[in-house]
Structure formats: C-alpha cells, structure tokens
C-alpha cells in the first residue's frame, strides 16, 4: 500500500483521469473530493465488506422459511410471471461444500 501525507487542499492524481482531493479535515473525519470517469466505480470499503458478509449469511436458506416469506408477500399480487426452462430437482448431495477462499494476510 502506498501511504502519503497530504494537506487540506492538496490532491493526488491516480492514473491519468482520477483525482482525489483533501477537501476538509474535521477531527478524525476526512472529507475527500473525487473526480473520476463514469466507468470507475467508487465504493466505500465497508460496503464491500457488508455485501460480502450478506452473501455469506444468506447462503442455503431453509425451504420452510421461503414458503412463510412468500405468504407475507401475497399483497403484491401477481406482478410477474416467469417462464423457466428448469424444473426443480432433488439437490445433488455429492457436491463439496462452498468455502470462501483463505484470507490473504494484510500487507
């Protein structure tokens, strides 16, 4: 990781099109201004972590819970009808469990 010290008002240029400017420092909060093309996504790191955790927690939902939840959604009426080529099958018990890859040590 490249660690730099900047003063308020100073900026960094990442590549040729991304600018990160220190707009204000307020106690332990830093206000950043970012100029970047629309093709570059700017995401708070905690959101990525949140999404990752959600995906982990949401795995393998219980069928009974899905049925109960559907009952609570009946007020939606029939808004969408799906045409699906796949018929439900018995789960394949021979598949290995999904495991997240080992964490890389922090540098």
């Amino acid at each position, binding site marked *: 990781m490249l660690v730099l010290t900047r003063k308020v008002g100073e900026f960094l240029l990442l590549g040729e099109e991304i600018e990160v400017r220190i707009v204000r420092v307020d106690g332990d909060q830093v206000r950043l201004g970012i100029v970047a093309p629309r093709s570059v996504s700017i995401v708070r790191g905690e959101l990525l972590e949140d999404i990752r955790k*959600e995906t982990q927690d949401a795995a393998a939902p219980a069928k009974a819970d899905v049925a109960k*939840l559907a009952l609570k959604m009946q007020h939606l009426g029939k808004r969408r009808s799906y045409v*699906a080529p796949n018929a*439900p099958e018995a789960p394949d018990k021979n598949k290995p469990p999904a495991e997240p890859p080992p964490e890389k040590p922090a540098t």
Partner: protein
Amino acid sequence: MEGVLEAVSEATQLVLPSRLHLIGGLRPFTQAADFDLYVETDAPPFLRIEAVSVNLAYVLVEPMVVWSNYVPDFVATDLDEVGITPDQPPLVLAIVNLSKGPEQATANLAGPLLINPSTGKGKQVVLQNAMRYSCRQSLLAERL
C-alpha cells in the same frame, strides 16, 4: 447509464435463462460462478439459484417486483461486461437473506446481480447509487 426498467404494474412475463454464469462468482465464494436458476413455483415471487459444482444455494427476488421505486444506477463497465445494450433491459436480482427467519428477511439492494437475460451472463455489482439503498432492505417494507 441508468438501468432501463419499467415499473412492474401488471403481470408481465419474463423468460429466464436456465443457467447463470456470474463473473467473479459471489464474493466470498469466488469459485462458485455457475448456477442453475429455478422459479420457486410454490413461493412467488421468489427465485432460487443452486451452484453447479459446490453446495451453495440462494433465494433471489426481483427488487422491482416488490418496490416500484427501486431505480438502480449501474456502472457502465459492469453493463458492458455483462453485455447489456440499450435495447435490452437487464434482469436484476437481489439476494434474499433469511438467516434470521421470514419476519426479518432482507434483500441486498446495494449489491444486486446484474444479468443478461438472454445469455445468463451476470455479475454481482455495486450500484453507482449504492448509498441510496441498503444491503439489508426489509422485504416487508412496502416503500423504499
């Protein structure tokens, strides 16, 4: 580019791809990229995916079916990667979290699955306007 989506007001039909290939898998399960897609026929409007080569399954929902004011703003490179063109609306699906039971079921609206409905190619993305939505949106809330 904003997703080109119409509010679902009457029953519209959607032909689903039978298999999804998610670029990069579903973090942290990066090795699970290929999934079979099923309709939960006894539990509308939910869908289910099951990974082809590992034991991994999810319940999904189209956010627009639940909330007509969900307006996802996709990053242009994500749309390109999945092959979405202006004339073809994407299939957008959110992972449903039932780990705390049906009363507390939530949907991840900030990091949905962006899918090309004709090829099944897709990706879990972070919305350009992710800050507007929750990754734990209560499914029982009628408005966002």
